[in-house]
């Protein structure tokens, strides 16, 4: 396949076949048993762009006329121009400029990419591929190089509707895990290229996956949360949590809400309330018993830490970051603590750091160091024997490679899980769960199958490898993933391959393990029930 083939009007650029995928260990070592990825219906193919790899993440409608095609291409080009201007893209121009100008195409980065490796090295998933396509478009249509120079620099490419639409889809075959960037000897970041392409689509063309934009940032800003939970619904959820806690630990706990002047405002990914309430309950139990002065917020957006803007749209990122900061300010709490959500950590604490100026620059930190402090200093009584089953740790990219929070979670696990074991590679060298950059919540057509079979494959491989000696269903095992999106992805990945039933591998957060080890609680907190 040649790079310029992306603009050719072929039915499909690449086909993913089971036999090409990287092999999985036992008991998934027979490719014949690989689940078949859903094929798109003829109707879906007719209506949406699917000619990249037969997968649809965004669902870009096919144009109905030549004019529509032209407008689409023009918009893209004008967005690309904006992307290269300081006033419109001060947020990322320097790293983008570096990545566009100084890649020497040594291809060292490719073998770090989980999607590229898992797919059996499909050319389009190569980290350098998208960047090269974008570079060629810039050389030909923005820098307007002459024909000879285009030939010499290998920059000839035809910009048409097919190319733009495929490139848009392709930006959503990269989880922005930035493992490729980490190994680039020259500091080039091909993950960033995907991020910037996504921005052109959203900020200029108004195109983004529905789950990130319409049901994501837009819904969060309007209704309070990307889950659709309104402040009123939150009240009911908290009541329910208090009841569940009482049932589980035999004691009533009052979950503080909107407590002015509290030491900590704890903010969860609201997905936890819906899918894993045991996580938010475990936080409440730990903080209560450790005597922490904390509160939740019931303010619009204040009870949902997510900021999907960090994946596709700088303006939406800024809006949500500012909302979070304003809530903290109004509540007069001392600081904000982010619960187990990787991208919220990265967005709120790191990326938004250069958006929140003056009074909005409120102290923000991860909840993990506080948890480590509670556990390591014996502020609650724990019995590691209660967690005496094999446990491994998944490192959420946003929290670990992109933020350097590596040890607190390990210190906790080493103390409370006698059979804790590390995957290889781990820490800042980890592989993404395959659900990064919004994938975990994107449910479009056959995209969930792709993120299980392809982008999540390296993670599944690692998990099976780390438990290889106890892989049978007779031993219960636990993957600790201190991140909501990673948990969502692992849930779907396990369901796709039926991992819970076949291998008895369960997954969950970190705080659940802490509470499970608490001496004062009679019943095991982790219920080992697949939901």
């Amino acid at each position, binding site marked *: 396949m040649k*790079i310029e083939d992306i603009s050719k009007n072929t039915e499909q650029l690449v086909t993913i076949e089971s036999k090409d995928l990287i092999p999985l260990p036992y008991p998934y070592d027979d490719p014949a048993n690989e689940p078949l990825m859903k094929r798109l219906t003829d109707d879906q193919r007719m209506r949406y762009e699917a000619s990249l790899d037969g997968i649809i993440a965004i669902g870009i409608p096919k144009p109905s006329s030549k004019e529509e095609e032209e407008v689409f291409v023009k918009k893209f080009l004008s967005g690309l121009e904006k992307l290269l201007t300081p006033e419109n893209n001060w947020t990322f121009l*320097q790293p983008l400029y570096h990545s566009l100008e100084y890649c020497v*195409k*040594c*291809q060292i980065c490719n073998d770090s990419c989980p999607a590229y490796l898992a797919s059996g090295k499909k050319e389009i998933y190569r980290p350098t591929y998208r960047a090269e396509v974008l570079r060629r478009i810039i050389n030909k249509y923005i820098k307007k190089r002459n024909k000879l120079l285009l030939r010499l620099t290998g920059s000839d490419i035809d910009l048409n509707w097919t190319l733009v639409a495929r490139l848009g889809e392709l930006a959503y075959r990269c989880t922005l895990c930035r493992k490729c960037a980490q190994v680039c000897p020259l500091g080039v970041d091909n993950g960033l290229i995907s991020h910037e392409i996504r921005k052109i689509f959203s*900020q200029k063309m108004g195109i983004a996956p529905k789950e990130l934009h319409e049901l994501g940032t837009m819904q969060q800003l309007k209704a309070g949360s990307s889950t659709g939970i309104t402040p009123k619904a939150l009240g009911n959820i908290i009541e329910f949590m208090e009841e569940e806690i009482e049932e589980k630990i035999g004691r009533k706990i009052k979950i503080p809400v909107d407590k002015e002047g509290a030491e900590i405002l704890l903010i969860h990914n609201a997905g936890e309330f819906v899918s894993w309430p045991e996580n938010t309950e475990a936080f409440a139990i730990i903080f209560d018993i450790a005597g922490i002065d904390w509160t939740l917020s019931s303010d619009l957006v204040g009870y949902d830490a997510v900021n999907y803007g960090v994946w596709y749209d700088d303006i939406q990122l800024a809006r949500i*970051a500012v909302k979070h900061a304003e809530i903290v300010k109004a509540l007069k709490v001392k600081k904000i603590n982010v619960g187990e959500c990787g991208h919220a950590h990265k967005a709120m604490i790191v990326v938004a750091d250069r958006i929140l*100026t003056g009074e909005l620059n409120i102290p923000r930190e991860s909840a993990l160091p506080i948890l480590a402090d509670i556990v390591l200093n014996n502020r609650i009584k724990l019995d590691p024997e209660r967690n005496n089953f094999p446990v491994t740790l998944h490192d959420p990219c946003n929290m670990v490679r992109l933020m350097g929070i590596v040890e607190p979670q390990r210190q906790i696990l080493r103390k409370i899980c006698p059979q804790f074991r590390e995957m290889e590679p781990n820490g800042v060298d980890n592989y993404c769960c395959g659900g990064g950059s919004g994938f975990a919540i994107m449910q479009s057509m056959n995209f969930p199958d792709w993120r299980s079979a392809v982008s999540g494959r390296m993670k599944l491989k690692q998990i099976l490898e780390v438990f290889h000696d106890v892989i049978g269903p007779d031993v219960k095992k636990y993957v600790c993933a201190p991140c909501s999106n990673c948990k969502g992805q692992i849930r779907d990945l396990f369901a796709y391959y039926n991992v819970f039933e076949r291998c008895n591998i369960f997954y969950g957060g970190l705080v659940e393990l802490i509470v499970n080890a608490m001496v004062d609680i009679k019943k095991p907190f982790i219920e080992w029930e697949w939901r």
Partner: protein
Amino acid sequence: MNTFLAILTYFAYCFIIGAYTVKIIKYLKLPTHLRWELYPVIHEEKYAYGGSYFEKKEWWNEEKQKRYAKGILYLLKEYFTLGDYLTRNVLYWLGLFPWHIGFILIIAFHILCFFGALFMVLGFTISSGSPDLWGRILFYSILITGIVSFITGTVGSILIIINRIIDKSLRTYATPLNFLMYIFTLVVFISGLYSWYFIDPDMKEYREFWKGLITFHFVGVEVGTMVHIILFDLFLIYLPFTRSLHYITRLFAFFLIRWDDEPNRKGSELEKRLIKNLNQKVGWQGPHIGAGRSWNELARYDR
């Protein structure tokens, strides 16, 4: 011819310095961006495993002192060993390493020739039997850097061409200009090798030539040496049009992007720069944006 050669050389050096400076200024003038670091961050005390200050409770209470020495040492080591390539693609490294060493040394060779000439102007004798210690040191440094550069550069250029052809992924992304560049560098190194072996085993002509440039009494050199000087000058002029500045921009990419973990503190210089950025008008026209307002206003404006 002597004058032409001298003017070309002056021009080549002025050009490369000027062009590189313009490029560097352009790079450094790009606005302060959002944080986008990647761990491990070299100056972190927990660098060994990639930890950061975010592992500490209330990290903002700690004043951090950035230490640049470690980062510079790391990058210098990488410049001279290309260790990242060695660990990830040995075959590629086998060509890339001598090619780069050829570059580094050919530049060192010409700089040393300049110093040799300067010392000659100051009255030193530059030769193997020079009574001055500096004369002998310079003589051998020039000789060794020159010879090693020409040999490693020649070998490297050949290997890198072979590599780019036989390795499918390298070939797919290689451009005709890449190959022209490799051939060009090959010719530059071979011309140096030829001139040293057949014409000027002591590299005396280069020193005389440089002495002429310093004193403005331009001297002639043998055709072989002249060809090498012309090719090297053209090479210098061509360099700014390639990605060669990655030698320097890599430093920026690491310090200003990958390792940039500077928190935004109230009242800091960084905050002032950010406020300026945030006050710029946004030109994006996506339906949800509400273009025409500043970043600051837009962030507070829900649609």
